[in-house]
C-alpha cells in the first residue's frame, strides 16, 4: 500500500514522514519553517545559529519559549547520569574532531567539560553564560524535534509515522515492524519491535565514527568516546524522552532511570549480549 510520504534532509540526517492522506500544504509549510527555526537556534554546524553566537561570547541569550522544556529535560538527565549527559559537551566533540568543519581530527590538547551551573544559568528560556560555551543538544534534540513535528501533525487529525533516521514516532491506526539494526553489520538486524502509538529512539556508535574508537557519544569524565555499549533502543511516550534515555543508557544503568521515566529498552554490548527490560515488546534473535 503506497502511503503519501515526505522525504527530506534536516539536522544532519534523512527524514521520512508518512501520512494516510497527503499532508496539507499549510501543515507542510509550518513544519519546514519550524525545522528551519530549530536548526537556526540549535545547530553548532552553522555560523548564523544562536548556539554559534553563544560559542563566541559570554552573555544573556533568549531562546524560543519551548526551550525551557528541552533544557529542563537536559537538567533532569544531567542529574540522573551524574553529569555525563550535558548540553555543554559541544567543545569536547569539537576537540575530538566532530567540529563544524568536519575536520574529524582529534586535537592534541583536550579540555575539561565545564560543570553545568558553574558557567551557565537558566531562567525559563533565557540562558546566561559567563564564558564562551559550545552547546550541543544532540543527546535529546532529534527526539525533541520529532515531538514538535508530531504536535503539528496531531492538529491535522490523521495517522502519521515520523522517521528521523531510526528515531520514530507513530500515531493513529499505524502499525510498524521495526528492525533493530545490528551495529556490527548493517545488513543484519538483531531483533524486531512492533510499534503503535509510541516513540522509539535508537542510538548506536558505528556511523558517526571517524577513527579508532572515535565516535559521537563522548564521556565528559574520561574526555573520550564511551566504550562497552554498541547500541541502545528505547520506547517511551515522547520521542524526547526516548532519545534522552537511549543516550543515557550509554552512560548509566536502567535502574538509575526507571524511577523518573516509563520506558522499555534494549541495550547491545560489545561482547554481543543484550540487556532488555522485562516490558520490552518485541523479539530478539538468539
Amino acid at each position: 500500500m503506497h502511503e503519501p510520504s515526505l522525504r527530506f534532509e534536516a539536522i544532519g540526517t534523512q527524514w521520512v514522514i508518512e501520512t494516510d492522506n497527503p499532508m496539507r500544504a499549510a501543515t507542510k509549510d509550518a513544519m519546514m519553517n519550524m525545522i528551519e527555526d530549530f536548526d537556526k537556534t540549535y545547530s553548532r554546524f552553522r555560523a548564523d545559529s544562536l548556539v554559534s553566537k553563544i560559542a563566541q561570547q559570554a552573555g544573556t541569550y533568549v531562546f524560543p519559549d519551548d526551550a525551557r522544556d528541552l533544557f529542563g529535560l537536559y537538567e533532569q538527565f544531567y542529574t540522573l547520569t551524574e553529569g555525563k549527559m550535558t548540553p555543554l559537551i559541544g567543545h569536547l566533540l569539537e576537540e575530538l574532531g566532530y567540529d563544524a568543519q568536519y575536520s574529524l581530527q582529534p586535537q592534541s590538547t583536550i579540555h575539561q567539560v565545564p560543570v553545568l551551573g558553574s558557567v551557565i544559568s537558566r531562567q525559563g528560556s533565557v540562558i546566561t553564560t559567563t564564558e564562551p560555551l559550545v552547546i550541543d543538544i544532540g543527546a535529546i534534540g532529534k527526539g525533541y524535534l520529532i515531538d514538535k513535528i508530531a504536535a503539528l501533525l496531531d492538529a491535522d487529525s490523521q495517522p502519521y509515522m515520523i522517521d528521523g533516521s531510526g528515531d520514530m514516532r507513530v500515531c493513529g491506526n499505524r502499525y510498524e515492524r521495526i528492525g533493530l539494526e545490528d551495529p556490527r553489520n548493517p545488513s543484519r538486524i538483531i531483533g524486531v519491535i512492533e510499534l503503535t502509538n509510541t516513540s522509539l529512539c535508537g542510538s548506536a556508535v558505528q556511523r558517526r565514527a571517524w577513527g579508532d574508537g572515535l565516535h559521537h557519544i563522548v564521556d565528559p569524565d574520561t574526555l573520550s568516546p564511551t566504550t562497552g555499549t554498541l547500541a541502545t533502543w528505547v520506547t517511551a511516550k515522547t520521542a524526547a524522552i526516548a532519545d534522552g534515555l537511549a543516550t543515557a543508557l550509554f552512560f548509566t544503568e536502567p535502574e538509575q532511570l526507571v524511577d523518573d521515566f516509563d520506558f522499555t529498552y534494549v541495550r547491545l554490548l560489545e561482547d554481543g549480549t543484550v540487556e532488555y527490560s522485562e516490558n520490552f515488546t518485541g523479539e530478539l534473535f538468539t
Partner: protein
Amino acid sequence: MESPTKPNAAIISIVVVVLLAVAAAGVSVLTKSTPDTVATSTVTSSSSMTVQTSNPATSSTSTPTMSMGAACKDGTYTANAPYLTPGGRDSLSVTLAVANNIVTSVSISQNPTSGDSERYQSAFERSYKTSVVGKDINSIDLSRVSGASLTSNGFNSALDTIKNNARA
C-alpha cells in the same frame, strides 16, 4: 534465556493507548453494546479493525473500517490484541467503558494468567540478559529499521577525505 512470566506492561499500554486514542478520536469502529451483549473487535496486524456484533435485536454483523469523526457511543468495548514477548506470542483482552466520549474505566485481562488492571501503568522491575545474533535484514518482514542515524553528505565526504589521507 529467561522469559518473563507476565505479559509485557508496555504492550498492554500500547494497546490501551490505541484503544483510548480510538475512543478519544471518536472512531466508530467498536460497536456499542447493550448490558446483555458485548461487542468484540480484533486488532490485526494490518491495522484494520473488524467488529462483529452479537446483538440479538439486530441479528446482523457489521464490519466497519476505521473512520474518523464519528462520535464514540457510550457503552462497553472489548478488544483482543496479540503481542510478542521474548518467550513467544501471547494475547490480552482489554475492556473499556465509555460514557460521553470519555473512557470511564479500563480493565485488562491477560492470557494465560489473569490480569492486574493497574499493571499497564507501572515501570519494569527487572531486566534480562541474553546473547543475540544478527539475521539477514531481507529475511524478515519489516516496515523500517532503527539504528545509528544516517549521516549527512557533508560528514560522509569528510570521512572519505580522512580515509583517503590515511591511505596516502
